[in-house]
């Protein structure tokens, strides 16, 4: 159990779980709030609104689901859509698996329950920097998830009264975090190519009928190209 905290190889002290989770929480509160408002408008009870944030915990899938429920879509198509929209998590789970292999199964199961775009991006960077503390990892996940749940319930309670969060610039919190994490990921030509291609392809796919697959397909094609293009094959890791 203790080995995960033996983090002697880190060059710099790792920031606290709270300060690392804060950009995620600041981004999740307003987006969660918007989800809560839309959920009660679509006819979800307060309990179901909160329960979806607790059990599903996937922003875009939840927003799409309440939209579909409000429009009278059948349960089966709401569930199928959630599956497609969240399929990209297969990639996240596989990519982080080498760092989790020494964890007990129950802890892996708990960690993966709170895997989102944002927590994946943060942990991928942390793990790469040998910041492997299980305690900190799970604390970050719990803080982020709490922010998402609190935002959703606050939105559901506030109902139609929607204060404008834009003047505070809070809707930029998640893009900002992606930007900081991306800068930390640009370690080799292969990484830079993967990022540039991933961004370009996701934008192109987002403009097609397959937009639900934009992140997944864009990232898969970009990573495959970057990993197996001859000129990037001279890699340090």
């Amino acid at each position, binding site marked *: 159990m203790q080995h995960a905290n033996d983090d002697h190889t880190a060059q710099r002290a790792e920031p606290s779980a709270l300060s690392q989770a804060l950009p995620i929480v600041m981004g999740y509160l307003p987006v969660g709030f918007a989800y809560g408002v839309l959920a009660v408008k679509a006819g979800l009870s307060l309990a179901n609104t909160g329960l979806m944030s607790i059990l599903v915990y996937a922003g875009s899938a939840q927003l799409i689901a309440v939209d579909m429920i409000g429009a009278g879509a059948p*349960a089966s198509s*709401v569930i199928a859509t959630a*599956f497609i929209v969240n399929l990209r998590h297969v990639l996240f789970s596989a990519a982080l698996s080498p760092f989790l292999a020494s964890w007990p199964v129950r802890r892996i199961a708990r960690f993966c329950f709170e895997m989102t*775009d944002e927590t994946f991006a943060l942990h991928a960077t942390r793990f790469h920097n040998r910041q492997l503390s299980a305690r900190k990892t799970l604390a970050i996940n719990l803080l982020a998830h709490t922010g998402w749940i609190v935002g959703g319930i606050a939105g559901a309670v506030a109902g139609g009264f929607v204060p404008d969060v834009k003047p505070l*610039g809070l809707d*930029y919190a998640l893009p900002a975090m992606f930007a*900081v994490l991306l800068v930390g990921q*640009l370690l080799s030509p292969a990484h830079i190519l993967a990022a540039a291609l991933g961004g370009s392809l996701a*934008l192109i796919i*987002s403009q097609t009928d397959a937009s639900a697959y934009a992140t997944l397909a864009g990232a898969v094609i970009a990573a495959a190209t970057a990993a197996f293009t001859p000129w990037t094959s001279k890699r340090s890791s």
Partner: protein
Amino acid sequence: MDQQTILLTILGMAAVTYLPRVVPALFFASRPMPEVLRRFLSVVPPAVLGALLAQSVLLEKGALHLSLDNAFLWASALTCLLAWRTKGFFGPVLAGLCFVALWRAIF
């Protein structure tokens, strides 16, 4: 939909969301990963981050927003520059937030 059906829908959504999140990690926790896959997955984080950043900055309600009055575009340039120079985490995020707030207060 009545609340009972919504509850069942939520449980279904939870299952189809959790399985893709957990199955690959558990699968590779108990057996070695092929070298080809390991190499591919090692560049997945920058590919995903590129995809997420591009979409969060350059899409507005699903449509491309490629113009010089896109506040997120300039804020991201500032955030990236600060992240690169300071190696910090929260400072660059906060600077970007302030930039966006200021931008919206002025324009």
